[in-house]
């Protein structure tokens, strides 16, 4: 199992997958990682729809321009807007649902990587089409699709901004200077 910082550093978006299915106990570990994500006011506004049915996966791929390639499964991360509004008001419904779901997504992406799986987060999908396909009830909104499977490629590192460009000390513009820039954690 990868060390946390190593997992963060070496995770890559994977877009080519083997057709080999992902065992349910492995999927459950990914779901558990999502379940333990940070969440404002302990809202836990997420719902996870695991899709393994080939016909449903194909339909999702067809209405999702960002779903490039085929995977043996996907996890659709949805937010429960109604419950979030009841407990968290407008901030809960409009912001925390998205922030929380994205934190759950990152946990799941890292868990997938630690379990030797590859994954790709997809936001380019038709929301009404996805709701129709998954029969999502009113108030449940799809936020992100995670394509998941065993990787069939090893992507190179993408360019990243050095810390000098994005990290500051005490106030904006005062460059964080103790780092070497692109240093690995």
């Amino acid at each position, binding site marked *: 199992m990868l060390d946390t910082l190593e997992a963060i550093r070496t995770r890559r978006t994977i*877009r080519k997958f083997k057709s080999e299915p992902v065992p349910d106990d492995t999927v459950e570990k990914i779901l558990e990682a999502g379940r333990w994500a940070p969440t404002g006011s302990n809202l836990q506004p997420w719902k996870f729809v695991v899709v393994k049915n080939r016909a449903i996966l194909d339909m999702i791929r*067809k*209405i999702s*321009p960002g779903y490039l390639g085929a995977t043996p499964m996907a996890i659709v991360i949805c937010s429960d807007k109604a419950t979030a509004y009841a407990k968290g008001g407008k901030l809960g419904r409009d912001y925390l649902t998205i922030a929380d779901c994205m934190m759950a997504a990152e946990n799941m992406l890292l868990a997938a990587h630690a379990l030797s799986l590859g994954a790709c987060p997809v936001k*380019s*999908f*038709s929301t009404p*089409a996805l709701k129709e396909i998954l029969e999502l009830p009113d108030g449940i909104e799809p936020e992100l699709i995670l394509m998941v499977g065993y990787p069939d490629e090893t992507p190179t590192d993408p360019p990243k901004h050095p810390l000098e460009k994005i990290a500051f000390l005490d106030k904006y513009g005062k460059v964080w200077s103790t780092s070497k820039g692109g240093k690995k954690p």
Partner: protein
Amino acid sequence: MKEEKKITGDDYLLELVAFLATSARGCIDEPPSYGPFRLIDGLSRLIDLPKYATCLKDDDFLHKIKAQIEDKKFSVMFDEREFQDMLDSVVLQVTKELKRRSL
């Protein structure tokens, strides 16, 4: 094991329709560079149509173009220049092929 459903030309056409319709809608909200990306990805998908619509002839030239698109299309996310060069190259090759087939 359940046999895979054979994809017909009609199935694939509908898939292209779904891709283009959802892309059109998505482009309203998505980053501007996704517009050219969807178009060139759509072109790459279109080149596969003869695989399913047997009345169409497979075209080696188009497959060569598709290979170049697939090789470089993700550069849209990290190297705009490389992406643009690939588009320019595809346009030029298609133009030369148009000329060759027309004259």
